[in-house]
């Protein structure tokens, strides 16, 4: 009986979402028009941003749609290229956001690439996912995107806090503490700041909102029970990936903000107080 119910749900869902045409997409633009009108009436001044966001999302998703279609049709060897482009784009975004950290691009690429490789490696080694492009690319993109945010948060927070508290940091260094010991309170804060959003999201999952992967699967007609299994893997994967990114970004940022002689770098010491 329960199987029949699930089958009925699957059939119904496919009718709802399985055949969305470009005409349907164009019709959905009326909701963007609502946002533009609200922005115009209330003089929020975001009409330009809304139009750019709409155009970019269309162009970017269309392009990645064609790329994924090509890769999934027997060109799986391109999986690493797709993931490489994602890591590259995430690195540029995170590195630019944290540009006051010396070598921010190197820190970003290390943290994001290691988080992606480590997390996907564990998932494939444990046999939870296959090395198939259809599994690796979507999951990899989630890890990379999340690791990008985590990496930026760690770098920006750690740099800003050490600059703001440099007298205290140098007082600790003067007591003979290593740079790691002297920066420890702010290192911890930066890691907590970066990791807490994902942890909070995991705590309220299913209570506040149905997350993306699960929603996508249900709309595509999968059974909700299958959908939650995937979602759980995704949430745990993001917890692990973010912890990995925060760890690498924190360590690498500290190495960039202190010299090997346990001195704050000059650019940090000369920030006006």
């Amino acid at each position, binding site marked *: 009986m329960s199987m029949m119910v699930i089958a009925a749900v699957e059939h119904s869902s496919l009718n709802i979402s399985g055949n969305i045409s470009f005409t349907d997409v164009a019709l959905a633009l009326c909701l963007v028009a609502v946002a533009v009108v609200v922005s115009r009436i209330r003089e929020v001044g975001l009409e330009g941003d809304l139009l750019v966001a709409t155009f970019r999302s269309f162009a970017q998703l269309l392009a990645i749609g064609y790329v994924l279609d090509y890769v999934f049709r027997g060109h799986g060897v391109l999986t690493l290229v797709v993931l490489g482009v994602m890591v590259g784009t995430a690195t540029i975004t995170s590195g630019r956001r944290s540009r006051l950290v010396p070598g921010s691009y190197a820190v970003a690429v290390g943290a994001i690439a290691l988080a992606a490789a480590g997390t996907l490696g564990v998932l494939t080694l444990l046999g939870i996912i296959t090395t198939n492009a259809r599994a690796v690319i979507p999951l990899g993109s989630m890890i990379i995107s999340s690791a990008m945010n985590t990496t930026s948060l760690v770098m920006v927070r750690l740099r800003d806090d050490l600059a703001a508290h440099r007298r205290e940091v140098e007082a600790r260094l003067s*007591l003979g503490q290593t740079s790691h010991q002297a920066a420890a309170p702010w290192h911890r804060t930066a890691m907590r700041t970066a990791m807490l959003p994902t942890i909070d999201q995991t705590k309220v999952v299913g209570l506040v909102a149905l997350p993306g992967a699960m929603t996508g699967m249900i709309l595509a007609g999968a059974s909700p029970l299958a959908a939650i299994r995937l979602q759980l893997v995704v949430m745990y994967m993001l917890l692990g990936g973010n912890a990995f990114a925060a760890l690498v970004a924190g360590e690498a940022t500290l190495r960039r903000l202190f010299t090997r002689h346990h001195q704050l770098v000059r650019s940090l010491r000369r920030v006006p107080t």
Partner: protein
Amino acid sequence: MAEPRFAYRDVRVDGDDGPIVEHFSATVARTGLTAVVGPSGAGKSTLLRLLNRLDDPDAGDVSCDGRNVRDYDVLDLRRRVQHVGQVPVTFAGSVADNLAMADPDADADALLERVGLSPALADRRADVLSVGEAQRLSLARALACGPEALLLDEPTSALDTASKGGVEQLIRSLADGGLTVVLVTHEARQATELADAVIEVAARA
């Protein structure tokens, strides 16, 4: 003549807009109090920081007891050559916790008495101390490391007149007790009244 505690030889330190200090040479005696004086922005604080390697020169060298400071283990050098900044820094926790950061086995009562604070303050939260008390605590924490030299960067500039006199007396007594004390000050009076020797740093051209 006794070997100096510290020596600068043709030191240059670069800033964002050119050298902060250039072609600077001087020595600091092993005993007594040496004041480093000069106008604001002349690089006095920068010179002080070179002595325990909170910064390094871009040219020239700095030595301690006849040996280049770069040849010491930097963490060991910093414990031997303590730096106390202009604005008193206290860490979270009690006064005793602050002293324990420098030495877990520190005798808090003795250290507090040495800097003119009551041992009764040991259990008080460090962040509620007055500025004058906090600066004395900074000195006590530095002394807890058992240093051979104290580097003091304008240690009285944040204090009111009443606290200032007391801290000046304390600094003088530490120098008389055998510590090498290097005091950066912009006050000619302080240098004249306290110091055994004076190093003048010229304004940047």
